[in-house]
Structure formats: structure tokens, C-alpha cells
């Protein structure tokens, strides 16, 4: 097991190097000179040259890359060209917002997707199965940014039930001191129920929006995994022994169908980090996604480099953890 983990970790090194190299090179080809953007339209050529010198943009690409890599290992991702704030500090304050949103979306996907998939499998080819699978097909086809706008229109503008954007209301935000940066958890830790209600109400619409695709995919995978398992001999034996249907489905079948479901959930978690860019933009959610997007528009190289590398590394690590979790879900699996 440990040998396998070590082997997988070593295998990550070339991929991580490739990620950093790809991001570094791609961003160097962006049209427009960040020195000119920063110095402004009225800057003289001397001022622009001095700024290029100061930012290290006039050095050879290879030197710039190694400098970037060396700094990355020391968690020094540079400062934002626009705000001057260290990139690592921005990541530290923002990652919790993105993860809170992602975890909430994943929880919705699991809580509704698995039961929907189980129900569809148990009622195979009946109307409930058809309705659920048609719904899941619609779920993977709907653009999340559009769904977000519709939800805001319905629940925030028309019904006025939920806030349209942001993470916390102005009033709650003034008196609230976060501890971990996960606002829901912080409100619970501080036993502050009004703030808890406020942050949860802010989380509902973006989390629902972001959860649509994983929910649909989890439902589909659960259905197909359950259908595979439900035809196995041991299920027939359990039924023949008189085990109640509920126990057969949840204790015998679902437990064994968990492996592909677990893989899907892990992979979707990584994909959600990408989807967060669109959702965060619609809901003015102060996470990593909207920050990277602002960085791209402003040609803020360090912000984009740092943000994209952060998400890619988290994505790769999550995929590794998903692989390693196979043995926990299915002890029959042996690592080599």
C-alpha cells in the first residue's frame, strides 16, 4: 500500500512540472504587455522599461520559469500586479469560499443523486425511472450560468426568499468574525444562529446551481451501478432468504455499487472547481474562480498563474485521493 502511494506520488512530479510549464508558457503568449497595462497609457517608454525590469519581465523565458518554480516551492507566488497583495495571501483568504461552495454543491449532489439513482434502478423502465433519467439528462444539458440567472430571477427577484448574490449580508458581515473562513462552520462554532441563517441563505442558490451537473451524473452512475449489482447471484440469494427489499437494496446492493459512485463523486469534485468560475461570477462569490477570471481580464499574470496552478494541483491531488480510496471502499482491491 505505502509503496503504491509513493509510486503514485512520484508519478505526480512530471505532471505537476508539466502543469507549471503549461501555465507559465500560455500566459507569456497573452497579447498585451502587463508593464504597459500597469504603467497606463500615458507612461513613457523609460517608465515602461523600468517597470519591466522591476517585474523581471525582460529576463529570458527559461530564467523567468525557473524563478517562478523556485518561488512556487517556497509558496511565494508573487504579488498581484494590480492590487499589490501577495497571491498566496489571496489564495489563503479565498480558497475557503470556493471549497465551501463546492462542498455544499457536492453534498446536494450526493443527497439527491444517490437516492434518485437507486429509485430509478429499482423501478427500472417504469415511469419513475423514465422521469428521473429524463431529468438527469436535462441536468447535464442545462448551462449552469443560465440556471443561476433563472434561480435568481425566481427566488431572489420574484419571490424575494433568498439573497441574489454575495456570501453574507451587510448587517451580519459587520458583526461577524470568521474563524476558519468557512462561514457556515464559523457561524456554528460561534453559535450565532442569525448569522448561520444568513450565510446558509446566501449559499443555497449558488450551491444549487453548481450541483446540477454532478447531481445528474451521480444519479446516472448510481442507476447503472445498481442495475449491475441487482442482477448478481448474492442479491437473488438474499431475496430468496426473505431479506426485506429495503435491506437488500441499501445493505447488500448499494454498498457494493459504491465503487463507481465513489470514483464519480471524486472526479466531479475536481470538475466543480472549474464550474465554480462561472457560478462565482454570477453570484459575486468571493472565491478563487471569480478572482482568476478578474485576473485574466486585467492580465494580472501572477494572479492567474497562482490561481490556475492552485486549482490544477488540488484537482490532481483529489484524483489521487479518489484512486487511493478504492481500497477503503472495496477491500478486495490489492495495490501493486
Amino acid at each position, binding site marked *: 500500500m505505502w509503496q503504491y502511494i509513493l509510486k503514485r506520488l512520484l508519478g505526480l512530479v512530471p505532471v505537476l512540472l*508539466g*502543469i507549471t510549464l503549461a501555465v507559465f508558457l500560455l*500566459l507569456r503568449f497573452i497579447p498585451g504587455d502587463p508593464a504597459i497595462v500597469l504603467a497606463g497609457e500615458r507612461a513613457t517608454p523609460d517608465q515602461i522599461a523600468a517597470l519591466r525590469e522591476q517585474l523581471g519581465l525582460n529576463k529570458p523565458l527559461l530564467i523567468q520559469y525557473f524563478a517562478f518554480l523556485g518561488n512556487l516551492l517556497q509558496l511565494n507566488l508573487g504579488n498581484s500586479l494590480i492590487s499589490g497583495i501577495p497571491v498566496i495571501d489571496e489564495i489563503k483568504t479565498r480558497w475557503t469560499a470556493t471549497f465551501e461552495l463546492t462542498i455544499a454543491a457536492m453534498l446536494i449532489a450526493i443527497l439527491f443523486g444517490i437516492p434518485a439513482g437507486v429509485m430509478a434502478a429499482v423501478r427500472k423502465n417504469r415511469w419513475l425511472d423514465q422521469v428521473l433519467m429524463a431529468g438527469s439528462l436535462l441536468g447535464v444539458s442545462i*448551462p449552469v450560468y*443560465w440556471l443561476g440567472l433563472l434561480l435568481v430571477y425566481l427566488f431572489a*427577484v420574484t419571490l424575494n426568499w433568498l439573497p441574489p448574490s454575495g456570501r453574507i449580508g451587510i448587517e451580519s458581515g459587520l458583526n461577524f468574525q470568521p474563524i476558519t473562513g468557512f462561514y457556515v462552520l464559523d457561524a456554528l462554532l460561534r453559535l450565532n444562529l442569525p448569522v448561520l441563517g444568513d450565510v446558509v441563505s446566501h449559499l443555497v442558490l449558488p450551491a444549487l446551481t453548481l450541483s446540477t451537473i454532478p447531481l445528474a451524473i451521480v444519479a446516472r452512475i448510481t442507476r447503472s451501478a445498481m442495475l449491475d449489482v441487482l442482477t448478481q447471484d448474492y442479491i437473488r440469494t438474499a431475496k430468496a432468504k426473505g431479506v426485506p427489499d429495503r435491506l437488500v437494496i441499501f445493505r447488500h446492493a448499494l454498498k457494493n455499487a459504491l465503487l463507481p459512485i465513489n470514483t464519480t463523486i471524486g472526479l466531479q469534485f475536481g470538475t466543480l472547481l*472549474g464550474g465554480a468560475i*462561472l457560478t462565482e461570477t454570477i453570484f459575486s462569490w468571493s472565491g478563487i474562480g471569480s478572482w482568476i477570471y478578474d485576473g485574466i481580464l486585467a492580465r494580472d499574470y501572477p494572479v492567474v498563474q497562482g490561481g490556475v496552478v492552485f486549482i*490544477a494541483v488540488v484537482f490532481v491531488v483529489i484524483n489521487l485521493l479518489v484512486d487511493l480510496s478504492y481500497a477503503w471502499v472495496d477491500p478486495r482491491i490489492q495495490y501493486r
Partner: protein
Amino acid sequence: MDLSHPAIQRFRKSRFGKIGLCLTIALILLALLAPLLRPYNLAADQSYVTRLMAPSRDHWFGTDGLGRDLLTLVWYGIRTSLLISLASVGFGAIIGLVLGLVAGYFRGWLDTIVGWFTDILLAFPSILLAIVIVTVTSPSVQSVIIAVGIVQIPIYIRLTRSVVFSLREQEFVQAARALGATSLWIILRHILPASLSPLVVQATLSTGTATLEAAGLGFLGLGAQPPTPELGTMLADAFKGGYALSAPWTTVFPGLVITLMVLAFNLLGDGLRDALDTRS
């Protein structure tokens, strides 16, 4: 075409597949007929007086922030979105197919390098990679095609590589090799035709994903630039113009059409998978 072919028979039994095929044909026809049947001229028929008008007999989908007829805009938007989706899938599939064939057939260091390239591309969430690529090449229809196409490449590499891995050990390939056939001949004559079924299914399903990604780039302001009508860009205009919520028709219709397009390709892809992949 042999209508009694088992794959066609299986497809005819797939209700969802048939709905997907009809929807796809209808969308393609709509896109082709746009210049002939357009209700309004987008360049000429715009006026401040008619801006943000609700759906009516004159403007079935209402008008947008520039007073243009939304039905005409959406109609042309289907054209742009279809062009982007089909071209990007074609681009990604061809490059992925070539790299997958080469890596799977020759293995060795070629396979290692292609595998590394695939792992790196897969390490980025797809929309994030597409955003970075479009930014590098500056937003336009062409750059969206390239960006969405590049995001698709690793999927085709993996798929082709896995199919080639199993095919290259089959007896008919070994027989061709024993008869002195060159690698190029074996790949083109024996391996490529046998790999096409899963690729066709994947390409259909990918067209739906590509439509979503391209519209997502448009929504972020990184898609087709004005005056080219594009469905994601229409949503972005309404969102950034501040009238997405006060004039909901400006978002409802473009979004509905994007959903319909993606749904059509997903249904068709599911139907084709049932028809072509006998394991399913």
C-alpha cells in the same frame, strides 16, 4: 444504406435516440436556413425606440438591449454555436485520434510522451483551460474553436489508445503484420475502421459538452465578438447590461436554445451508444 443492419435496428428502438436525431436535424436545418428566412436584418433593424420590448406579435422573442429582434439573434446564434461546436469537436477528435493511434500502436517512448501530455491536459478543469487558451489567443470564434477543441483532445487520445491497445493484439492485425503490411497500412486499413464506432459516439456526446463550454466562454465575454450573434454572448450582454432580470426574455430564450442543442446531442449520443456499442 442497409436499413436492416443490426446497429440501425437497435437505433430505431431507441426512443431518446430518435428524438435526439430529429432535434439535431431540425437545429442544423434552422442554422442553414437562417439567411433565407430571417425575420429581421440584424444590421439594419435596430433602434433605441424598440429596445427591451417584451415578446409580441412583431417580435416573438422580444427585443434585446440594442432594439434588435431576439428571434433573429437566437436564430443566427444557433448557426454560430453549431459551427463552433462541430468545428471544435472535429479539431479535437482528429488530433486526439492521430495521437491515440500513434501512442497505442507504437507504444514505447511515444506512448510515454503522449501519456504525459494527456495527463497534463486532464489536470486542468476543462473550462479553466479553455478560458486560459482563449485569453492567450484573444477572443474570437476561431480561438473558441481552438480552445474547446484542445480541451477535447485528451478524451480522444485515451479512447483511441485503449481501443488500439486491444486491437493490435487481435489475430487479423497479427496476420496483416505477418504478411508484410507496413505500420501505416495496418493503422489505416485495419485499426482505424475498427476504432471508429466508439469515436462516433464520443464525438456526438462531446458536441453537447462543446456547446456548453463555448456558450460558457461567450457568457464570460470570451466568445464570439460583436456583431457576430452567439448564444452565450447574448446571456452575457443581458447580465452585464443589467437587464437580465428586468427583461427576462433576453436570457430565457437564448438559454433555452442552448439547453435544447445540448440535449439534442446528448440524446443522439445515448442512442448511438446503444446502437453501436453492443456491450451496452
